């Protein structure tokens, strides 16, 4: 796997991701939001590939785009109300929220600006070997065994919770 780490691809993918994110937040129709979120997710998967993380990219596509987003679309279709589209889309305190978020962005940028030197000193290390997936597997079943088990327990609990919540009669 040799992704092409050209700036062009980076700017294209990150542009897609940010544009998709913007549409998620601003679209009136929830289905459109979900579709733009899918664009974002795929673009982020592309960015993972550029960062030599093919396994994470694969997981991102399978779990996010193929699983979670289908779930979202399912629920949107189930609860789709004509009137939610006609209603006011933003809550009353949206200016406050927007201002706070902008402040957060400013903070982030300030931090990056300040710490820029830290990063520039370190060029990206050369590519690790091609067995990224194996390494991740070894780590998951080695160092992170306990965390992995807890994650599986979390999923089990989530399944039970979702079923109990969504089922009409059990």
């Amino acid at each position, binding site marked *: 796997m040799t992704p092409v780490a050209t700036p062009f691809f980076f700017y294209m993918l990150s542009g897609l991701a940010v544009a998709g994110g913007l549409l998620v937040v601003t679209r009136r129709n929830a289905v459109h939001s979900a579709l733009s979120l899918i664009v974002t997710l795929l673009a982020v998967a592309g960015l993972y590939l550029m960062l030599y993380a*093919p396994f994470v*990219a*694969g997981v991102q596509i399978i779990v996010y*785009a*193929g699983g979670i987003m*289908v779930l979202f*679309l399912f629920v949107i*279709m189930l609860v789709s109300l004509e009137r939610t589209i006609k209603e006011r889309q933003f809550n009353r305190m949206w200016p406050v929220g927007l201002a706070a978020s902008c402040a957060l962005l400013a903070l982030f940028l300030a931090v990056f600006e300040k710490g820029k030197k830290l990063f520039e000193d370190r060029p990206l290390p050369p590519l690790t070997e*091609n067995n*990224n997936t194996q390494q991740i597997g070894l780590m998951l079943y080695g160092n992170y065994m306990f965390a992995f088990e807890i994650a599986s327990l979390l999923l089990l609990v989530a399944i039970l919770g979702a079923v109990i919540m969504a089922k009409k009669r059990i």
Partner: protein
Amino acid sequence: MLDSFMSYLGSTVTPGEANNQLWAMIYVLIIFAGVSVAVMAMNWLERKALAHFQVRLGPMRVGPHGLLQPIADAVKLLIKEDIIPAESDKFVFWIAPLIGLLASFTVYTVVPFGPSQAVSDMNIGILFMLGVSSLAVLGVVMAGWASNSHYPLIGALRSSAQMVSYEVAMGLAVVSAILMTSLHGAGLYGVAKLSDGTGTLSMIGIVQAQQEQQVWFLFKFFPLGLIAFVIFAIAMIAETNRAPFDLPEAESELTAGFHTEYSGLRWSLFMLAEYAAMIAVSSIAVTLWLGGWVRPFPHWLSGPTWDFIFALFPGLTFLGLGAIAFLGTVRMPKHAYFRVQTIGLAAFGAVLALIGVFLLAIVIGAKVSPHDILNRTTEGLSNVFWFVFKVAVFMYLYIWYRATWPRYRFDQLMRVGWKVMLPISLGVLIVTAIVGVLLG
């Protein structure tokens, strides 16, 4: 330019790995054209084979034995009015078929037609394939929702539930095959060796593992490989919404399911995507369990003589097809009315025979005067031929299933998916792991 064109020819890796973008592009174009032609051929074959299953003739009018029927259909669909319902969500309606098509064609970038006959060999090949083919469900859901109509919506909900549920069993079956790549063992219950870190997700790596272990994963740890394969073979029919799992398109219940409101070109894109996806999942099955491009009995019937004999198969197949066409010419009624058809069929047979002779010439040429490029071409031809041949068997099975079985009901489908296939595939996975460790 010419240098970079020629430089790849001697290479033994895929253009993606060799970082040769020109050849990657050429491969992409070849695969795109090849799949499109295959879909057309499949269309014709399905109608003919289905017709003969059902004591009728199928298309006979457009060209000899209806050979030009797919082209006529394509032209008809292209010039048909493209209806977009007034109440639909125009943009989503417009983009949905493209997503389905994109998903099913992107998969082909990692399909290994041979050790170097693939666009690229990804580290996460099989994961990529499963992931991208799972994106096809988005196209279906979008199409159903955007039509803003009841039948498509129910069809879309059905098919998304179906595809998501069968993906689970499918994934587990795939995992058990991947597990086998790291469990070395000669033959059925021969000596297995648990090797550390030789397992792979790469499609080419999986086939090479089968080559090294000298066994198709179908027969490995018999019957574990077989069970996993059967699970996959069932799940892949459900994934592609084909009979007997074609509920999303159940015409007797939902008229046409999620593509009820589509017409003309857009509808044909859905069909194209469906057939392309059928070929794609069949190639996953072939890669994982049937030894991919590896010819039958590579070890039992080994040696240069056998290699040569098996390399003759592609040419002989085309010659055989040509012979069948000529037989058809002879059997054509001797009436002036049929003259054009007879000539057409003879020309078709001649083209097939020419291709066959050409392929044979390459193989025999390589045998008589070994030359690097000739040798490689021979090998490549043989690889691609065996891969395509195995996929073609699956394509025929698809037709056979469709002619034989009634359709499942939705709850039964879900029951089969979750209560039968999932436990079995989990069990197979666990037992495979245990057997692998015990023999290691």
